């Protein structure tokens, strides 16, 4: 088992390199204030709050920054009478 562990271990440095490349690409872009994912997140929330009272606790936001594509998931519970309240 120990022998197996010793030889079967995959190299970890390539993972470090790839993670850093993705992270730094996003961070460098963000300093120019063009972090699109953050901007979209804020504007989506702003647009929604125009039409209904947004209960912060009912909003779940998930991001995953990838090398080629990032994903932004905004999950909002919209109560049945939300439109009426805001009007």
């Amino acid at each position, binding site marked *: 088992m*120990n*022998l197996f*562990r*010793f030889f079967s271990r995959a190299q*970890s*440095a390539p*993972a*470090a390199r790839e*993670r850093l490349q*993705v*992270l730094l690409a*996003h*961070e460098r872009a*963000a*300093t120019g204030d063009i972090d699109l994912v953050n901007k979209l*997140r804020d504007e989506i929330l702003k647009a929604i709050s125009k039409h209904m009272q947004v209960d*912060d*606790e009912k*909003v*779940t*936001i*998930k*991001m*995953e*920054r*990838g090398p080629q594509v990032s994903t932004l998931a905004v999950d909002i519970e919209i109560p049945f009478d939300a439109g009426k309240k805001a009007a």
Partner: protein
Amino acid sequence: MGKVIVVTSGKGGVGKTTSSAALGAALAQGGEKVVVVDFDVGLRNLDLVMGAERRVVYDLVNVIQGEAKLTQALIRDKRVETLYLLPASQTRDKDNLTPEGVEKVIAALKNAFDWVICDSPAGIERGATLAMRHADVAIVVTNPEVSSVRDSDRIIGLLDSKTLKAENGERVEKHLLLTRYDALRAERGDMLKVDDVLEILSIPLLGIIPESMDVLRASNVGAPVTLADNRSAPAIAYFEATRRLKGENLPITIPGDKRGFFGKIFGRKAA
């Protein structure tokens, strides 16, 4: 009501973030509900060490400034479901950390978690003093090396004066976590021994983490040491430190690999 722990050291690069992630993960692996909070505003790294850097939506400063709810800023670990991370802000200035804001966040976290682990920035400035402010327990991370021991002594002084407990006439429980320890070099007389450091700092020992390739390997892949390889020597040392943190009276073992090359290959159990 959860317990608040600050992981601090004064000196940078001694293993605060590695230890925060490893202890937090170890507690969570035992079923406890844990949040690890990064106080290093402007130079966050806990997210990277825990492998959550691509999933940061909001951060501690957003919560303090009222731009996001605490629940929205917490990131749940993908491997251990009772482990959460509250990241620091990367772009904001650390002046955005206000004492009142930190107090509110810590109070809310204490209600929701069994353990709140505050990963302190290096130094003795605002970030470091705010990270230790609400601590019940302090873990002073120290390397067996002169400048680290000196800075730890300074931090111990701050823990006895600048924390809320100290101001109320109580004491913050302090523990020493000796990291990057190399038993062979200490044996040869080229590294401060455990007893040397203990004698100088005179606070109880929580554990000894050996100098090990496994620590770098874990950070490369973005996993706390105890998750990356739970049978590695540093992982075992962190698991033991965690048991002591929970109050168990476990004798301290000095992790050391005194065997030669073949011993290392054929019996990697040393810890």
